[in-house]
């Protein structure tokens, strides 16, 4: 499979447009508010699409396709339970405080509500974490692009070694993201995210259509897919009977509440998109509008994964993994090949001697399997677009938190607005450079990166309790919040250190506190262990915050107006007709989600 001129032209058209938007918007950036908050002037639907697009990074597309291939439609819990309720909650209940307080970032809200130390803790961990996760997703994407072997011919023609494809995909895509954000700031990122959203849909929709047509529609897929793959809830009463290895309580509390609310309600990467909205009503509608396409995304990214494992293992294999054509010698399931060790080039087997499958190739192989040249260029562009929108989300969140919450607060307060605008642009360059460094660090040692992600996971897990108490309990005090956060982080680390998923060795997967000699609980799957770590972190943070708050002095209530629920006027839904109000939209979104769950019972 090789690219032809038409594929290259389509990719070029995309590049011209993303860069063109950046150059066009350059003239509309005059103040730091324009650069970091789009002058708070973006319409709700644009913010809404950017809201999901920024979240829809390469890891999401590749990861959800892989998870679909591995676990089936149950993966859609990450959307229907793990995203929609939280998106409705943040829009209806939390946005009035984020937007109404005029905080310019999530850490800044913490400063207004609590104090400097909570903000500092949150800002610094968030900034570092953003750079790392951006680097890790860069690494993952470059690896995928390299394994497609679509660019081999072009590189050979240019007399460049094929090993350079990895470097080229990282450098070129980060350069493009750098240019359009440097020029047009958040507006440019948001506009391009909307463009990328439509492109991702345009690239994947025909793939799903062809795939479903080939296997005989949803009913045909249910016959051909591995048993239980088309049911999202069956077997959820018992950890052993469902593919995710978790029971319904752990799923609802861990994924549906702590992890999902923690991400959608407190992560500045997504909240920033709503903060850029033109009015309070638009800010509140942003996550609700985003929830509508979000609930249908399983059809776009999970269903192709299921199709990939359901195809007969006799169909010709797309030539990924090995350029010498040895792919066909590997073990496979559907069109998902066995994993090949990158360093040794040998196929991988688990401890029981079964071949390890490379599920991350589900979506890329589907593209290569069904798309002829022409539309293949479009599919590839969609993959690139998902990569760039995720990276841009990280970069804009980083430059804002760095400039407002770190530079302006601790390094150089009281400078002119022009100076901060300039620092924002410098931070954009710096953030991307650090992400590239993180991507190469991930290439050197995936273990170090996994460990860093784990540590940041501990820091992140309890945050939700801090925000909920901060927004809905006026008695929560600054010291309560700070020590609650520390205790929650410690609880996450301790829970992780004392438990292990089934069959795992102690270390990165858990059990490190005792060196594996004593384990408090063994989980069926790693995912279940992660959910319970989050539940513990949240609960301990909640309790410690409440207890410490009761023993420390509360803030003066007059200072909390606009920051806490009971002291803030209910936002009026200005102007809009009844069907355009946040509450109506929220109820509609929840009803649609329930219907989808019944459909895929």
């Amino acid at each position, binding site marked *: 499979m090789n690219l032809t001129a*038409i594929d290259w*032209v*389509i990719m070029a*058209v*995309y590049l011209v*447009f993303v860069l*063109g*938007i950046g150059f*066009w*918007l350059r*003239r*509309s*950036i*005059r*103040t730091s*508010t*324009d650069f970091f908050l*789009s*002058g*708070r*002037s*973006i*319409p709700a*639907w*644009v913010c809404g699409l950017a809201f999901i697009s920024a979240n829809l990074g390469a890891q999401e597309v590749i990861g959800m396709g892989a998870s679909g291939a591995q676990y089936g439609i149950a993966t859609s819990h990450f959307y229907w339970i793990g995203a929609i309720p939280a998106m409705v909650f943040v829009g209806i209940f939390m946005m009035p405080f984020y937007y109404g*307080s*005029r*905080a*310019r970032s999530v850490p*800044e809200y913490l*400063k*207004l509500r609590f*104090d*400097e130390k909570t903000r500092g803790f949150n800002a610094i961990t968030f900034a570092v974490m953003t750079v790392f996760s951006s680097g890790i997703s860069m690494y993952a994407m470059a690896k995928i692009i390299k394994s497609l072997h679509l660019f081999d011919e072009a590189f050979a023609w240019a007399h460049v070694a094929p090993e350079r494809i990895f470097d080229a995909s990282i450098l070129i895509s980060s350069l493009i993201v750098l240019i359009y954000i440097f020029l047009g700031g958040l*507006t440019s990122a948001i*506009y391009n995210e*909307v*463009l990328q959203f*439509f492109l991702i849909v*345009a690239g994947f929709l*025909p793939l799903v259509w*062809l795939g479903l*047509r*080939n296997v005989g529609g949803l009913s045909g897929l249910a016959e051909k897919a591995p048993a239980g793959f088309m049911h999202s809830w069956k077997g959820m009463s018992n950890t052993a009977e469902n593919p995710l290895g978790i029971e319904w309580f752990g799923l609802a509390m861990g994924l549906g509440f702590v992890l999902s609310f923690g991400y959608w309600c407190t992560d500045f990467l997504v909240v920033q998109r709503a903060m850029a909205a033109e009015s309070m009503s638009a800010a509140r509608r942003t996550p609700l509008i985003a929830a509508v396409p979000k609930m249908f995304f399983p059809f776009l990214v999970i269903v192709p994964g299921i199709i990939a494992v359901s195809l007969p293992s006799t169909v010709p294999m797309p030539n990924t993994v090995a350029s010498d054509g040895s792919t066909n010698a590997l073990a496979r399931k559907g069109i998902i090949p066995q994993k090949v060790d990158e360093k040794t080039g040998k196929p991988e087997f688990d401890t029981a001697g079964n071949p390890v499958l490379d599920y991350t190739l589900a979506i890329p192989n589907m593209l290569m*399997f*069904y*798309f*002829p*040249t*022409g*539309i293949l260029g*479009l599919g590839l562009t969609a993959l690139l677009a998902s990569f760039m929108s995720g990276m841009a989300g990280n970069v804009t969140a980083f430059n804002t938190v760095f400039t407002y919450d770190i530079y302006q607060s601790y390094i150089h*307060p009281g400078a002119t607005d022009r100076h901060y605008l300039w620092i924002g642009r410098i931070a954009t360059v710096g953030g991307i450079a650090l992400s590239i460094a993180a991507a190469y660090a991930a290439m050197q040692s995936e273990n170090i990166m996994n460990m860093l992600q784990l540590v940041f996971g501990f820091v992140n897990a309890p945050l939700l309790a801090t925000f909920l108490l901060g927004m809905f309990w006026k008695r929560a005090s600054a010291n309560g919040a700070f020590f609650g956060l520390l205790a929650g982080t410690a609880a996450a680390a301790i829970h992780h250190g004392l438990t292990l998923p089934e069959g795992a060795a102690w270390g990165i997967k858990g059990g490190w506190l005792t060196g594996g000699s004593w384990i408090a609980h063994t989980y069926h799957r790693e995912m279940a262990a992660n959910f319970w770590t989050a539940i513990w972190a949240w609960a301990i943070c909640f309790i410690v915050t409440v207890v410490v708050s009761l023993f420390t002095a509360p803030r003066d209530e007059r*200072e909390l107006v606009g920051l806490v629920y009971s002291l803030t006027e209910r936002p009026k839904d200005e102007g809009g007709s009844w069907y355009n109000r946040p509450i109506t939209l929220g109820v509609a979104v929840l009803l649609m989600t329930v219907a989808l769950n019944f459909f895929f019972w």
Partner: protein
Amino acid sequence: MRLDIRLPIGLMFAVIGALLTVYGIAFSDNAIYERSLGININLWWGAILLAFGVVMFWLGRRGTSSVQPADDTAEGRNLEQREANVESAGRKRGGH
């Protein structure tokens, strides 16, 4: 200065759609469509994208949603003023 996002989106999809449609017509009975179940997916999907692009572009030409610098409008200036107030109030609260 103003830019309605629907204009570049519409234009881009119209261009990509047109490219695919033309390519689909030019190479219509080719063995390349074996993988797409014998369907000339370039032609059909190209035509759909072209139509989508044209509609978006038309909506953008007609519509008003656009971004402008904050200090171009009275509301924008007012907003920046309020933001400056919040900031100085925040600094006072924080004890700086």
